[in-house]
């Protein structure tokens, strides 16, 4: 196969980053973390909004609806990861990523896929989102139960 190498000038960003002025990495990171933490309340609202959207979805009734539903679930789960991940909502993030995995699997397996596992993920998200922050054991129990179920269901093939 033909390989063409393109000469290019160094990106302007390379010159900018070393130019006079600026801030230390430590200060930049502290500022960034402060800016992000100011968005925590909004992040929690976003998580709730997307979980509510998932809960409100009906199970698909035909193949076309299935494709559409999978896409919607995948987008909502992705948005949950977006909103939860900066705020250390690790369990919610992990379940949302697991839900993405399930949707990905469903896209491949089609009709053979057991939709109940998607429903359990959505219920787990709802439960995790309503549990108080201090309910560490309960949160761990929800995620362990879900992980066990996924392993039992797909352990031999996945």
């Amino acid at each position, binding site marked *: *196969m*033909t*390989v*063409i*190498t*393109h*000469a*290019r*000038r*160094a*990106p*302007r*960003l*390379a010159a*900018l*980053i*070393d*130019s*006079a*002025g*600026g*801030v*230390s*990495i*430590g200060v*930049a*990171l*502290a*500022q*960034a*973390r*402060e*800016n*992000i933490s*100011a*968005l925590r309340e*909004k*992040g929690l609202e*976003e998580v709730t909004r997307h979980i509510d959207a998932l809960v409100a979805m009906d199970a698909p009734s035909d193949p076309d609806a299935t494709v559409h539903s999978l896409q919607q679930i*995948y*987008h909502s*789960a*992705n*948005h949950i*990861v*977006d*909103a*939860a*991940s*900066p705020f250390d909502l690790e369990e919610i*993030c992990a379940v*949302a*990523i697991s839900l*993405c*995995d399930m949707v*990905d699997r469903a*896209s*491949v397996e089609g009709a053979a896929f057991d939709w109940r596992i998607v429903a359990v993920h959505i219920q787990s998200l709802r439960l995790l989102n309503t549990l108080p922050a201090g309910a560490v054991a309960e949160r761990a129990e929800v995620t362990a139960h879900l992980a066990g179920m996924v392993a039992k269901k797909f352990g031999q093939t996945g």
Partner: protein
Amino acid sequence: MGVVGETLRESAIINLTGAVTMIVDDSAFAAEITSSALLGFGIKTRYSMRGAAEAIEVLQDVEIDLLVVDCEMPGMDGFELVHWLRRSGPPNAFVPVIMTAGHIRRSMVSRVRDSGANFIITKPFSAASLLERIVWVARDGRPFLEVGEYFGPDRRFRETAPPGEERRVDVIRRARFEAEKAALAASAQ
């Protein structure tokens, strides 16, 4: 902590104030998170777009210094946008691109590899990992290659390892072998 990742020292000075930056993400909140992190680094996001089509309108005419784009978007997704960008000619074909993803579908792995982006960050990403990647792509000296359908930075990391935890199996295996050899040599003395 004295260091950030493997490549950044907390006392090192960076100046990203003048970087013309575009974020493309269908989630307004995710874009806000990214732009808040960038603001902390000194970057005022010039363009925050909710879709590839509106991004293209700007990218055709305005030179930017950094593009942060989400992989998963309705309609034209992030991969297609970067694919278009790399073939768009001046002013932005060679611009540093960081892609972000909450989740990568198994069917998308080859698209990730062939996207032409400089780096892909999977979430959850921290402010430190984002900054580390920005500094890395700014100094990314890899040549651009055109190979079949692919147009983008050389995908083989020759002189510098990619930032973050080592994930290449052959490198991990070699490092483990060298460590075991060193331990055996030490115990034999």
